[in-house]
């Protein structure tokens, strides 16, 4: 009797686990592929094993971030045009350690090319080198791998341009005078830090003499933290007129904070964001203007560049020129980077023309 009931309990437990974990059958690695299917439904089908067709991997900083998902759309578009397969995979969190583990597994599979948005420009150099030594071309996009760790870098816009356009926008919004603050991503984010440097340089120019940058705070690309930081800014600096947030998470959070605090028209938010996220705030006046390049184009271009290198059309040296489908032709610059183009400024007039 006891044994029977104990057995019953065991069966129940297994049933429970099976019910709950039907897609992720726990310890049994044999069934692991099932997880792959379920765990990444947005992911494209596994690399085709057709002979001749190349398989590239498009690696974001972290999975589950819309910006990168949009970039992936462009990458997939390019893949379709080129007749290659592009897999989208990356670390669970935007963390260099985990990203390296993912990359090592990809290098081990001997994929035909890697297109990476780096969590840490230096940390990925050894891994990138390793890949290139194994005959796998490496292109970084969005956030660069330092030179030596990649064949080429696809730059969304030159850092200086990004810095300048944001200062211009904020100056316009606040009427050329007053206190502003910057709400950045994590304090270690290389892109943002570079842009902020350029913003500071730009702000030293005489035409911005009346604008005072009071502080730089970090929202860690977390919605809650960014939101609270934005409120903190308004509280700490009652005369604050503008917030620049050069990150898609931060700008939306800041705009919402302005709205919630009923400071629309007193404090203006600008920076880098996606149209879908920002549409409401553009219309409400919390963030009348912001900028961004099209991330899909960025992904699109990176796959074209990667393909050009992988198929031997170019070597990836400065001065090499390649065709990138609908975007036209691009040349690799002196520092090994390719420039996508100037960022688009979105405002009430054009916001409804975009959907990403």
């Amino acid at each position, binding site marked *: 009797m006891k044994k029977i009931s104990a057995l019953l309990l065991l069966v129940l437990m297994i049933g*429970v686990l099976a019910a709950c*974990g039907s897609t992720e059958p726990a310890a049994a690695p044999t069934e692991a592929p099932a*997880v792959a299917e*379920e*765990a990444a439904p947005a992911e494209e089908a596994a690399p085709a094993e057709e002979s001749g067709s190349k398989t590239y991997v498009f690696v974001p900083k972290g999975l589950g971030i819309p910006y990168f998902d949009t970039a992936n759309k462009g990458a997939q578009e390019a893949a379709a045009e080129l007749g290659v397969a592009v897999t989208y995979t*990356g670390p*669970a969190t935007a963390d260099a350690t985990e990203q*390296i583990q993912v990359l*090592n597994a990809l290098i*081990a599979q001997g994929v035909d090319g890697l297109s990476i948005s780096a969590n840490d420009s230096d940390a990925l150099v050894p891994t990138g080198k390793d890949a290139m030594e194994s005959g796998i071309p490496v292109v970084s996009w969005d956030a660069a791998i330092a030179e030596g760790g990649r064949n080429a870098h696809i730059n969304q816009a030159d850092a200086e341009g990004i810095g300048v356009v944001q200062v211009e926008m904020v100056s316009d919004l606040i009427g050329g005078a007053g206190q502003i603050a910057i709400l950045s991503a994590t304090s270690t984010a290389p892109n943002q830090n570079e842009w902020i440097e350029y913003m500071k340089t730009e702000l030293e120019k005489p035409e911005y003499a009346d604008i005072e940058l009071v502080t730089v705070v970090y929202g860690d690309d977390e919605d809650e933290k960014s939101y609270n930081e934005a409120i903190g800014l308004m509280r700490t600096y009652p005369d604050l007129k503008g917030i620049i947030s050069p990150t898609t998470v931060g700008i939306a959070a800041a705009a919402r904070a302005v709205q919630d605090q009923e400071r629309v028209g007193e404090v203006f938010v600008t920076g880098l964001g996606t149209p879908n996220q920002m549409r409401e705030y553009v219309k409400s006046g919390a963030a009348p203007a912001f900028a961004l390049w099209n991330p899909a184009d960025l992904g699109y271009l990176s796959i074209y560049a990667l393909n050009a290198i992988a198929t031997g059309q170019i070597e990836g040296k400065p001065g090499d020129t390649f065709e990138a489908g609908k975007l036209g032709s691009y040349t690799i610059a002196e520092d090994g980077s390719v420039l996508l183009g100037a960022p688009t400024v979105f405002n009430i007039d054009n916001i409804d023309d975009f959907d990403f």
Partner: protein
Amino acid sequence: MTSKQSLGDFFKRWEWLLVLLIFLVTIVNARLTPYFLDTRNLMRATSDFMELGLMMLPMVFIIITGNIDLSVASMMAMCASLMGWLHMQGTNIWVAMAAALLLGLLAGFLNGYLVARVKLPSLVVTLGTFAFYRGMAYALLGDQAARGYPESFTFLGQGSIGSIRFPFSAVLFIIFAVIFSLILYKLKFGRYLYVIGNNEEAGFYAGVNVVRTKLLIFMMSGFMSALAGIVLAARFGSTRPDIGTGLELAVITAVVLGGVSISGGSGTMIGAILALVLIGEMRFGMGLINIPGQGQNIVIGFLLILSILIPHVGRELTSGNVKVNKAMVGKTAVALIMIALFAIFFFWSRTLLIA
């Protein structure tokens, strides 16, 4: 009491189960993907887990004594940040490295002092220093990344030995694993750890210096975290204050999966090392078949729970202590129904937006 006994017996077999699992995973991985059994690939994957391994060694000690150290990843970041900061100030890298190790000892000492002398629960203490040490890392480096380490230094993390490219960090891990095993099994210090984990007071009455022992293990933890931070900095060739975020939970997972009882008093070093190998193999294997990190986490989470659940249910079955019990079946049924409802809702509602 009898359950403790069979628990002990079980753990004697637990290592064998781990070996079996490792064997199984190896076979499955090798069958699923041709890239798995490739020396070069295995070596590359190995170096990804060495920092984890280095921090795991003292964690085995700490958990055997019934304590826990949540601050390991933070100490790692703080010490690596100090080294990076000093390096950027122009200090010789080896001096900076020594300073980082020293800071690790100090940080561990603070943990140990509060736990052993002030007698605060280790969970509370290290939860506090978890934030504090991580904060110090940010305070040291801010928005900077320390870089430009000399090649002689990056060898610690990137270097390898022999034609099979055996990572130098793995050599380091093996050396320390041997040292820590010897301490645990061949020195009275090691025996004291089990004594403290089982009955601290009786140990004290038998002349065990409980305070010093606890202080030492937390200092070891600080030291090894610093070393792990150095190895990680060397592997990356740069240091940022946010390195290794969340690694403490991975360290604890490996130790518990290795059969070390979270309530202290039992566990082996070899078990923890085998668990590290198992986790490493599984993660690498899943990576090879492109299971994203979140999926891997689910699998490891279940493995962790099952590693305790299955032996427990097995014990209940063999001991015959399970009774025909309406209440028990009822509770199980309630839980089962709730989980089933959840599962149904889970799959139904996600179809709403994801076509």
